[in-house]
Each structure stands twice: as structure tokens, then as C-alpha cells.
């Protein structure tokens, strides 16, 4: 068991290097260099040439990648071109913010999604089920930026209940987390419902009913436990979708997290910052998957045995 997870963690290293390499090469293939973007309207050929030299941008791409790799293995992700600060510092500052946003959003999505899924499954094909599933479909299909702007317009601008942006108080956290969690809530609700329906067809449910258990006991005690397995998987995948969703949410609500850093980095061809953010996000997703596997093996002993 421990050996298995150790192996999983070891495999993560080449994955991270590979991801870093692909990002690096992709940014090298697309036209545009960081200095030209930094100078925008004020293009000055002699200045650009000098900057390229001082920032070692005139070295071949492979040399620059190896230099990056060497530094990165020692924990140094370089200095952001655009913000002139160590990438590690920028990520360390932005990470707690994104985690706070993403985890609140995740909790919200479970609190909304799981009960809705259960109720819909129990009341399958009733009007409640159809309403809830319509709601879930709405959640899945609505783009984050649209709910974000609508939320701002309604609750901040029209009603004045919540601040438009910022991230210092819980009031400021409510709306972005809700917007971000909304989307996942839909997915989780649909998944919980279909799994629960699947589980309800099993023999042991009939047995439970035959024992004379109340329907709630049947659902909560027997069906639910067995139907939550795939939901755990989706929670791990959720980390990825929450991270990518936070890119937009953070921009709309002016939240200083990882998502905004990455967008700025891509637009500014800020390679050190982008490399840093991508490697970091990848590590996070790998970690999430390992955690899900662990949970999985705890919930389902059969997996542990294998």
C-alpha cells in the first residue's frame, strides 16, 4: 500500500518535467516575446535588443529550458519578467487565496450537489426530480463569467448586499465561491443521482427492503455508501475544474489568486511565471488524484486488496 503510493509520487516527477517542457516549447513556438509585450506601444529596437541580452532571451530555447530545469529542481523558479519578483514568492502569496476560494467553492458544490442528487434519485421522475435536474443542467451549462457578472449585478449593484469585489472579508468570499461552486454542484448532483439510481437496482437493496427497513434507511445506510465511490473520483477531478474556473472568477472579482497570475503570464509571455504556475497546478492535480485513490481504497476494500 505505502509502496504503491510512493510509486505514484515518483511517477509524478517525470510528469511535472514533461508538462514544464511542453509549456515551455509551446510558448516558444507562438510568436511574440515578453519584452515586446512589456513595451507595447513604445517599441524601441535598441532597448529591446539590450533587454533580450540582459534577460538571456537570446540563448537557444533548449539551453533556457535546461537552465530553468536546473534552477527549478533547486526550488528556484526564476524571476517573473513582468512583475520582476521571484515566481515562488508570487505563487506562495497567491496560493492560499485560490485554495480558500476553491475549497469554499468545493464545499458549496457538495452541500448543494449531493442532497439534490439524492432527492432526485429517491423521487425519480417526479416533478421535484425534473426541477432539480433542470437546475443541475442550468448549473452545468452556465458559464462562470456569466453567473459572476449576473451575481455582481444583482447582489452588489442592485441590492447592495455584498461587495462587488475584493477578498478580505467573508462577505467578499460568498459570491465568488458560490459562482465557482455552482458549476460543479450541477455535475455532482447529476452524478450522485445516476449512481444512486444504479445502486438502488442491486439485490442488497431488495434484501434491505425485505428486512423491513424504512426507505430512508435503505437509501442512506445501503445505497448511498455504495454510490458515492465515483463521486469521490469526481471530487479529485474537481480540483482541476475549480482551478481553471478560478482563472475567470478571480479576474471578474478582482481576487489575487493563482488563476489571475496564470492569465497575466500567458498574455505577457512571462515564461518563468507561467512555468511556475503550470508546474504548481499540475502538482496540485496529481496530489488531488493520489488523495482520491487513497480515499477510494479506504471506502472500497476490494481496491486495497488489488
Amino acid at each position, binding site marked *: 500500500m505505502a509502496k504503491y503510493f510512493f510509486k505514484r509520487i515518483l511517477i509524478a516527477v517525470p510528469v511535472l518535467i514533461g508538462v514544464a517542457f511542453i509549456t515551455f516549447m509551446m510558448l516558444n513556438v*507562438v*510568436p*511574440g516575446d*515578453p519584452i*515586446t*509585450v*512589456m*513595451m*507595447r*506601444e*513604445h*517599441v*524601441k*529596437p535598441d*532597448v*529591446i535588443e*539590450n*533587454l533580450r*541580452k*540582459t*534577460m538571456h532571451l537570446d540563448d537557444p530555447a533548449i539551453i533556457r529550458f535546461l537552465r530553468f530545469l536546473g534552477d527549478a529542481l533547486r526550488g528556484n523558479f526564476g524571476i517573473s519578467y*513582468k*512583475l*520582476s*519578483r521571484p515566481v515562488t514568492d*508570487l505563487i506562495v*502569496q*497567491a496560493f*492560499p*487565496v485560490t*485554495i*480558500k476560494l476553491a*475549497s*469554499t467553492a*468545493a464545499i458549496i458544490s457538495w452541500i448543494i450537489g449531493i442532497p439534490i442528487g439524492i432527492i432526485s434519485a429517491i423521487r425519480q421522475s417526479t416533478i421535484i426530480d425534473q426541477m432539480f435536474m433542470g437546475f443541475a443542467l442550468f448549473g452545468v451549462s452556465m458559464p462562470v463569467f456569466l453567473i459572476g457578472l449576473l451575481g*455582481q*449585478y444583482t447582489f452588489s*449593484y442592485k441590492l*447592495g*448586499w455584498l*461587495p*462587488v*469585489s*475584493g477578498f478580505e472579508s467573508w*462577505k467578499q468570499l460568498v459570491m465568488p465561491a458560490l459562482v465557482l461552486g455552482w458549476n460543479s454542484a450541477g455535475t455532482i448532483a447529476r452524478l450522485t443521482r445516476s449512481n444512486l439510481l444504479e445502486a438502488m437496482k442491486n439485490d442488497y437493496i431488495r434484501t434491505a427492503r425485505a428486512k423491513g427497513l424504512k426507505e430512508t434507511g435503505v437509501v442512506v445506510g445501503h445505497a448511498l455508501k455504495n454510490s458515492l465511490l465515483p463521486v469521490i473520483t469526481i471530487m479529485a477531478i474537481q480540483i482541476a475544474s475549480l482551478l481553471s474556473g478560478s482563472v475567470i472568477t478571480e*479576474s*471578474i*472579482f*478582482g*481576487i*489575487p489568486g493563482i488563476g*489571475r*497570475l496564470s492569465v*497575466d503570464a500567458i*498574455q*505577457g509571455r512571462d515564461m518563468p511565471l507561467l512555468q511556475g504556475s503550470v508546474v504548481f497546478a499540475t502538482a496540485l492535480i496529481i496530489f488531488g488524484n493520489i*488523495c482520491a485513490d487513497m*480515499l477510494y481504497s*479506504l471506502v472500497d*476494500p476490494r481496491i486495497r486488496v488489488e
Partner: protein
Amino acid sequence: MIRRKLAILLTAAIIMLPVLTSCSSSQTSAPAETKTETEEPQAAEPATTDKILKIASSDNPATLDPQKTSEYYREPLNIYDRLVEAVTVDGKPELVPGLAESWEVSQDGLVYTFHLAKDVKFHNGEVFTADDVLFTIDRMMNPNTAAMNTDFFDMIKGATEVFEGKAEHVEGVKAVDDNTVEITLEEPFAPFIANIATPGCSILNREATEAAGDQFGIDTSATVGTGPFKVDSWSVNEEVVLVANKDYFKGAPQIDGYTVKIIPDAETQRMMFESGELDVFDTSEARTQVPYFKSNPDYKDNIISAPEAGLYFYAFNNSMEPYSNLKVRQALQMAVDRQTILDTMYDGEGMVLNTFLPESVLGHNSDAKEIEYNPEKAKELLAEAGYPNGFEMEIIQVSDSATTLEMNEVVQSMMSQIGVNVKITQVDEATYYAMRKAGEIPVYRSSWWADYNDPDNFYYTFFSEKNAVVRSTCYNNPDVFAGLNEARTMVDPDARLKYYQEMDNIIINEDAAILPMFQMNKIFVVSDRVKEFHIAWNGWSDMSFYDVVIEN
């Protein structure tokens, strides 16, 4: 069974740990800078008793170092002073004494002597002397500084040698005594005084700047100037906080400081302004909101506007088919109804230009020949040029600029009336600037705002031999090339400005090299408590807040 349940709970708890601790950890791992306000006021009921001006910006400053940025000048304008300052006096741009109380120019236009203000202190307590001016210029030209504004000093004698690594000090800069600096130019450069009033030429302190090394402009405690505001803190993607410099040599500012919130989305900025979270809304990013504010009784008296020293234009690539054909360019100039675009898109807030110089810039010719809107004649010209059925035209623009797209679409429909089929290609910023630098963009819409009040800043930037390709105008008129170089060295101001007007006529009319569109009005909306909000002479969003008063 129980053990298993416990294990599940435990694992879940571990995963949730960051959530539970995130509230406290985000406090402890907050940026190193100390915050003055520990608790942000609840934005829904904003505190209105402070004297802190709250503004928003869509982007982080890249740095607060004025030499290492070519566009983030808001903070430099407030943290530092220049030898000479460009301000608006009675509605006209003027150059007034800054750190230099007075100055003289030699007859031949080569030697400038500056008499510096005494008893001026930097924020770290250091007294400002002539040596700081020497240091500022040496630092800019030193290639290891990796400065972006070397072109503001490269006309000084010996500056290029320093930039090329052949010398340590700029030969043409001398400290006569602690309060006198003598600057000698390589050859006369008429706009020199206007040129050193740009924020890029802000004066730095030798001791503080050298000690800070590459952290200057990044580490807020090490970033000092002589200006009316001091940097207090800067959290990336969050806010930059500046406080008043009570010892400012021209007198303390009337406000206690200003805070810049970094908010990328213009719509969010507007809602924040309307809900009282911001004191100022800059309409530049949201021009379509102008009619709303103008017609809203709550705001219509709080609109502050001034003509911008900047213009919008369509640039044609003069060396690319079919734009290399003069008749084609003339036809394209005639195909665009500029007044209608100004009226419909920008509520008429501006003025159509028939020259490449906005009205408030020296040398503007208000009698320039009108570029008429005449689609019929444009069609004839196209036929004469060999394109009776028009052609395919590609306009390239950055992908995240809705206003550019909107104007391009209007132009697209106007062009279709003369048979030109416009394709709008959107690329990301980095690609766009890379293409433009290589002279590869066929047609683009852009704008230019004055850095300093002189025609050189407009014509040299777009039509000189040095810059024509990197601007993708690919203009190629040797007479104008020579003329633009010559005009830089002309000492007689009247003759010089007249010469620029003649060149403007060649570029815009005879060569039809570019299509000037219009200049616009800079429009801010401010909250009730903000008074004395004076727009910068050039209409930049980056401006000094020294004059601002807050009345609660």
C-alpha cells in the same frame, strides 16, 4: 468497520485542512509589506471619513522604477519629481519648474544649465543634489540597468557610449556645484526640455537606488523619490498603497494618500464606483458608459473631462501590396466617415483630425487640408489603381479589445461600400506586437498619446527611418526621413513648427500614408467628495494626484 470509518474521516480532514486553516494562513503568508489598515472597511457601507483617494487600475504596475517601464507612470508621477514638470495652465500645456528652479540654454542649443531647488529631501531623508541628476542619467544609460527609457537621454553627449558599454559616465552631464547641473547634447535637440519632463526622466536618489539594486521599484521601502506621495505597500493583483509626503518641498498634499485597487474588469470597476468602493472611474476602458453617466442626475455634475493630447488612427503598411499604391491609400482615407464613428461610438466626445497632431500639441495645424469622406471618389481611385472590384483587406488587432473590434467592424462595413472586403484577424497581444515590430501588419488601428509636448514625439515615432518598420507603417519617403532628423536640431521654434506642418502635409495628404481619425476627450467620473481633480496635460490615465482635495 469503525477503524475504517475513522480512517475515512481522518483522510477527509487532511484534505480539508487547507480550507480550515486558509483563513489564518492567508493572513500570515500575506506579502512582506506591512499594511497600514489591518481591517478593510466593509465595502457595502464604505467609510467616507478618510482622506484616502480610492482608484482602480486594470493592471499591476510592472515596477515603480520609472526607468524600467514604458507605460506604468501613475506611481512614478506621484513618487518622484522631474527637473521640469509638464502641467496644464489655463487649459494650455506648459513646462514649469520642478526640481530645477530655472534653466538656461546656450545660443547654439547645445548646453543646458539647470539651477536646482535647495532643501529638497528624498523620502529617506537624503538631500537632493546635482549628483542625483548625474546618477539618474548614468543609471538609465547603463546597459546593466536594463532600462526602457534610454531614448529620453540618448541625445546627451556621451550617452550612447555608456549604453554601448564603452564608458561608465555620461560625458555630457556635469555637476558644476551641488545645485547646478550642466548638460551638453551631442547635437541640438529642440524638444529637450519637454522631453525631460516625461515621467521616465524622474530623478532618483543615488544612495537609496544603489542600495536597493534590482529591488528598486519592487521593494516598497527601498523605493524613494522626492515626490508628494510615498509608497507604503504593494500586494500584487490586490492593491498599491501610497501615503502623503508631509515634507514635500512644494507643500504637503491635501489628501492623506491614495490606494490603487487592481481590478482587471472594467464592468466590475464601474459597479465598485457606483457602490462607493471607488472615488474615481476612468471611462477609458468603458467608453460606452459615458452616455449613461452623462444622463444620470447623480453623476452628470461629477464628470471631469479634457481634450486628450492623443489620437486614434488607421495605419496602412506602405510597402505591402496593395497599400503600397498611393491611389489605394487615398481611396481608403476617403472611405471612412470619421465624424459618424466619433458621434455614434464615442458620443461625439472628441474632434476629427486632418493632421497627425492633436490640438493641444505644439505645432498643430488647424487649417490642415480636410480628408473628405467620399466613397464615390474612393471607388474611382480604386479603379484607377487597378482594383475596380476592390480587394481583400486584413485588419489585425489584439483579441481582448472590444472597443477596437467595434471600430474595426464599423470600418469594415464602410469599406464594403467601396468594394473592399475587410477581414478582421484577432491575435493575442504578444503576437500582435511581434508582427508589428517586424513590419508585417497590413492595416491596424491604434492610438498615440504624447509623452512630451512636441511634434517630434508623433512624427519621429511613426515616420522616421528608424521607426517606420517597427511601427508597420513601413513609410518610405527619404525627404521626410531627412526632414524629421533635421527638425530635431532646429533652434528657431517658429520655423521648426512650420517645417513640421509642411511635413505633415506631405505625410497625410500627398503620401496618404496613414488615416488620422480623431482625438478624444478624457472623461473621468468622480465621487461627490473629490474636488480639484485635474486631468494631466496629455490626457493620460496616469496622472499626479498632488492637487486633489477630499471633502467629506
